[in-house]
């Protein structure tokens, strides 16, 4: 994108008809899931949908600044939504994958902690670079007072910018977003892993121990694919940059929930079909 590129004027408007179509598609996809694999497959599909929605919702919390943030002219971390969400989600996924044998809850929480930790470290180092490297204080341009600490923002904000640095609320938002994204990614992975470990031996005619590498790799790849799809769809929803949970763009989350649910249901259905006998 060139610097002069005009941002799409998508705005925060909802499209009720399209949302209704989305919900109907979701119900149809879950129905197909029930028809082809009523037990394990349907459980996995519902887990995948919940995981996808967690990723889509969590991404809204992450302070994404893009190119303006790199120049100190907008608050947030200076890269794109897809990169940040993928970083947090994959870090969470790797964290959660280690705990996959310890059950769903432990693995999901571990994944969430992994993602949250990555965002916390990223946010802290970003603020180090902003404050000590570029010499700019943290100030939000979207709110007069930080909703958590109550600090006023206006006197720290340079003229002609939308704010800069990473205010406290953005830091907190980043950690929450990383936690939700990591938990969602891990949930998808664990659900698919259980499904594949249960059904691949019969399908391929191999002992269970031998299919473990394939189950792990296939579940991991599907989780990464689903993660990227959900992260990019959310990036499209917030059209580039967002400051965190206090940003007016945050109110667009219902659209992302429906979009993530439909996209996850569709991709999850394909991921389940791979082990359904034909």
């Amino acid at each position, binding site marked *: 994108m060139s610097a002069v590129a005009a941002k*799409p004027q998508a705005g925060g408007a909802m499209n009720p008809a399209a949302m209704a179509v989305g919900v109907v598609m979701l119900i149809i996809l879950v129905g197909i899931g029930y028809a082809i694999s009523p037990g394990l497959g349907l459980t996995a599909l519902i887990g995948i949908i919940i995981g996808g929605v967690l990723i889509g919702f969590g991404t809204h919390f992450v302070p994404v600044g893009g190119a303006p943030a790199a120049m100190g002219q907008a608050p947030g971390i200076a890269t794109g939504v*897809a990169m940040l969400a993928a970083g947090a989600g994959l870090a969470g996924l790797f964290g959660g994958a280690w705990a996959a044998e310890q059950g769903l809850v432990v693995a999901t929480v571990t994944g969430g902690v992994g993602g949250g930790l990555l965002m916390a470290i990223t946010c802290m180092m970003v603020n180090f670079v902003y404050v000590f490297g570029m010499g700019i204080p943290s100030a939000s341009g979207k709110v007069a007072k930080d909703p958590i600490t109550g600090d006023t923002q206006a006197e720290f904000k340079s003229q002609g910018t939308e704010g800069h640095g990473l205010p406290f609320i953005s830091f907190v938002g980043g950690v929450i977003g990383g936690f939700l994204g990591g938990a969602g990614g891990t949930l998808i992975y664990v659900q698919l892993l259980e499904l594949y470990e249960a059904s691949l031996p019969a399908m391929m005619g191999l002992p269970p121990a031998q299919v473990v590498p394939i189950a792990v790799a296939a579940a991991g790849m599907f989780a990464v694919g689903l993660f990227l799809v959900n992260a990019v769809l959310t990036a499209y929803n917030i059209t580039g940059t967002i400051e965190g949970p206090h940003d007016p763009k945050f109110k667009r989350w219902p659209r992302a929930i429906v979009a993530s649910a439909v996209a996850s249901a569709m991709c999850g259905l394909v991921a389940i079909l791979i082990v359904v006998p034909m």
Partner: protein
Amino acid sequence: MSVKVEVIEGGTPHNTILITGLLGTLVCLYLTYLNVLTNTEMFAFFGGLAAIIALIWGSHTIKVLCSYGIGTGVPSAGMIAFGSGVIAMLFATRFGILAPIVALVLAAVIGFILGYISNNILNMKIPAMVQALTEMAAVGALSLMGFAALITGGFTFEGLTTGTVSMLGMTISSNQISFIGGGLIAVAFLLGAIAIQHPFNATLGPGWKQDRMLMLTAECGFLSMIVAAVMSFALISAGSAILSLIIAIAGWAYTYNQYIDLSKRDAAAWLDAKPIPDTEGH
């Protein structure tokens, strides 16, 4: 509602690139099936060529989509292409010889629904969105399948999940040493994703030229093919892997030189500065 900021001036129209890319990819993918017919692995390199042709088509699709300021950066388009493509590709490998066709159709369906979600539910309202995401998912699926064929010599689920390992002179079948079980698919995924998102990101701007961008895509594609060909030593015979590697290196050297020439053509001025100054004569 959105404003188109760049128009395609001159050059090959997008539909020509689309049809050529699609047919070229499918033909090259099916040429790897000669491996099964002739019972060798010599034709694996056609998989790499299929991936490169798909990447060239995909990078032009990214150009069409990102000409509308989508506000999320060019790399996100490459990420969604491979994210949706890998899902279609893995499922399609179950269909044996029909795998490329199934991957194409399934990826197109997934991409179409993602396009509908972006344009209507997320209210993007970008005219090229639905077609671009449909093409992009197909490109992701087909180029991953190309890399799979390059590395393993085939594109069926059996071939991608089983390998052989030699131990103490015995050859035993193993699922760990395989394209999916060994995690090579993750490397192939990112090799393709980087190659598809880089060219337009690197050449965009007022001086954008179609032939320069497509040459850069071919160069990135061959660079990825070099790495994939090196990985293929683990799974196919050394002779076939060396053949792939030679083709990849030759293709990369040619396209790299062409790209440098095109960059010199489009540059306002060219100073051949040397990174290390000559110290002779001291």
